[in-house]
């Protein structure tokens, strides 16, 4: 089995996982909001309403596709595709679990093990702007364009804070390789050596930015219903709208995975190293391949739990906090998060410089 084939398999697997996670998340969100608001929510389709996303999907698929007469025909269609594409690509560099040993060779559970994974992740997520901008402009609708403009400036503004925080993280870890970053977080006796404990400020800033990057409440101004009808996807219907929907949830997954990988030790099971786990399963009498597969399964579970924690917080926040005003949003991004990020960089530099002397 070549690395290329393995990558292809992993691509399918990860893609499928994300695509499964999206409808799951939809039902979680709808039921969760209902729960928080003391109402029932969708509970008719299947047990506990679990079939509801399927019904939604069917509904979207069969709805009429509407393309406005004055819209730019190509870009109008291209935009939803661009919305799904970056998050899926971005997921390719995120390590989901340790490595699987097949025929004596270790294969990392990851689509592409890239030496500059962190940079790549940032680069790809920054492309999300394109879909929003294109959608807003191609719709030839003032609400769409306003939403698109709001969205793009918001995303670009918060990307700067993200970049600054990533600088301090790189200073801490000394590498851009996400898998190595995860491995570095494996150690630790009392506390796991997670980024959360090494870079708490960066964690907070990045977490806030993650909300802004995915256009979620409290930063959902691009699609603020009360102001802009539905923002940049006002003119979209049917499957195209569904793609935007999926793109948003996929982006949330990427952001959660990003935070997990950088701050919560990625796929690491707390306090238990990959070595220990493998040895545990080997001791149970499994072969090397099976032991590694079992280990990876456990790690993937750990990873999923952490990601779903962040996903749940997304939902939680959405139904708890009101929407920001636009100037407040910009104030927060430029005048609070960015200076804090810069401060954090300086603190990190000082710490990195002084650490050998401490």
């Amino acid at each position, binding site marked *: 089995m070549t690395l290329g084939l393995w990558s292809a398999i992993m691509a399918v697997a990860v893609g499928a996982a994300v695509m499964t996670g999206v409808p799951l998340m939809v039902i979680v969100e709808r039921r969760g909001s209902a729960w928080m608001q003391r109402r029932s929510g969708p509970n008719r389709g299947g047990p506990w309403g679990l079939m509801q996303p399927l019904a939604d999907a069917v509904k979207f698929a069969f709805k009429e596709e509407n393309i406005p007469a004055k819209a730019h025909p190509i870009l109008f269609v291209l935009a939803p595709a661009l919305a799904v594409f970056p998050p899926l690509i971005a997921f390719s560099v995120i390590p989901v679990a340790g490595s699987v040993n097949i025929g004596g060779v270790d294969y990392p559970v990851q689509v592409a093990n890239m030496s500059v994974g962190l940079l790549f992740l940032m680069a*790809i997520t920054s*492309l999300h702007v394109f879909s929003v901008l294109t959608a807003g402009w191609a719709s030839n609708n003032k609400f769409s364009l306003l939403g698109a403009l709001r969205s793009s400036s918001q995303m670009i503004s918060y*990307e700067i804070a993200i970049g600054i925080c990533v600088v301090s993280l790189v200073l801490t870890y000394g590498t851009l390789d996400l898998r190595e970053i995860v491995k570095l977080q494996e150690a630790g006796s009392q506390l796991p050596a997670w980024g959360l404990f090494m870079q708490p400020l960066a964690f907070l800033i990045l977490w806030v930015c993650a909300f802004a990057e995915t256009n979620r409440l409290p930063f959902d101004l691009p699609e603020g219903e009360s102001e802009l009808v539905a923002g940049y996807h006002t003119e979209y219907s049917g499957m195209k709208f569904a793609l935007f929907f999926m793109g948003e949830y996929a982006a949330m997954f990427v952001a959660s995975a990003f935070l997990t990988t950088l701050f919560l030790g990625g796929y690491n099971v707390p306090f238990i190293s990959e070595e220990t786990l493998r040895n545990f399963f080997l001791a149970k009498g499994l072969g090397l391949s099976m032991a590694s597969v079992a280990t990876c399964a456990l790690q993937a579970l750990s990873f999923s739990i952490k990601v779903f924690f962040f996903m749940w917080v997304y939902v939680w926040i959405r139904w708890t906090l009101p929407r920001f005003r636009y100037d407040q949003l910009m104030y927060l991004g430029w005048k609070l998060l960015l200076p804090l990020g810069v401060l954090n960089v300086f603190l990190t530099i000082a710490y990195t410089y002084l650490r050998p002397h401490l």
Partner: protein
Amino acid sequence: MNAVLNEAPSIFMWIASAFAVFFSCVVYWSNNPIACAVALMGTLFSTAALYFAIGNYFIGAVQILVYAGAIAVLFVFIVMLLDLKPHKLRSLPGQGAYLSFVTIVAAGLAALLFCTLAKTPSEEAGTAFQLSAKNYSEYFLSHYQVAFQAAGLLVFAAILGAIQLARGHFGKKENT
């Protein structure tokens, strides 16, 4: 997919190259600024793909991050914001002569570039080679120290300039 440079190009390389050439042609031929901007983005992406293909992931990632993620967005943004209508190519007296002259110059330039650079000898080309971010940072902090600082200063100046321009002190005051 880490290509060795003096072997025959892989199919991936061919595809990426074809895209780069195609999109750059579109930038030239299309009359619609939006199409040009999108095609520019396509070229930049194809180039990034070539970087990945020859094993320079760092430059590839930076290319996407800065060029595709920032510069191309700016272009699209401006084109959309100013709502530029499709343009024809230049129409001047003697346009045909000018066009052929410029085309010959460009073709000659391409030929010259190719001929000059293709002759460059390379001993190490037979093996794959990968540069990491560390290599670059070592250069930036030793060899190119001054240039690095100057570039930082340049970016700072550009930020200030852009802000000043955007505040509109140079243009006509709008009464909206």
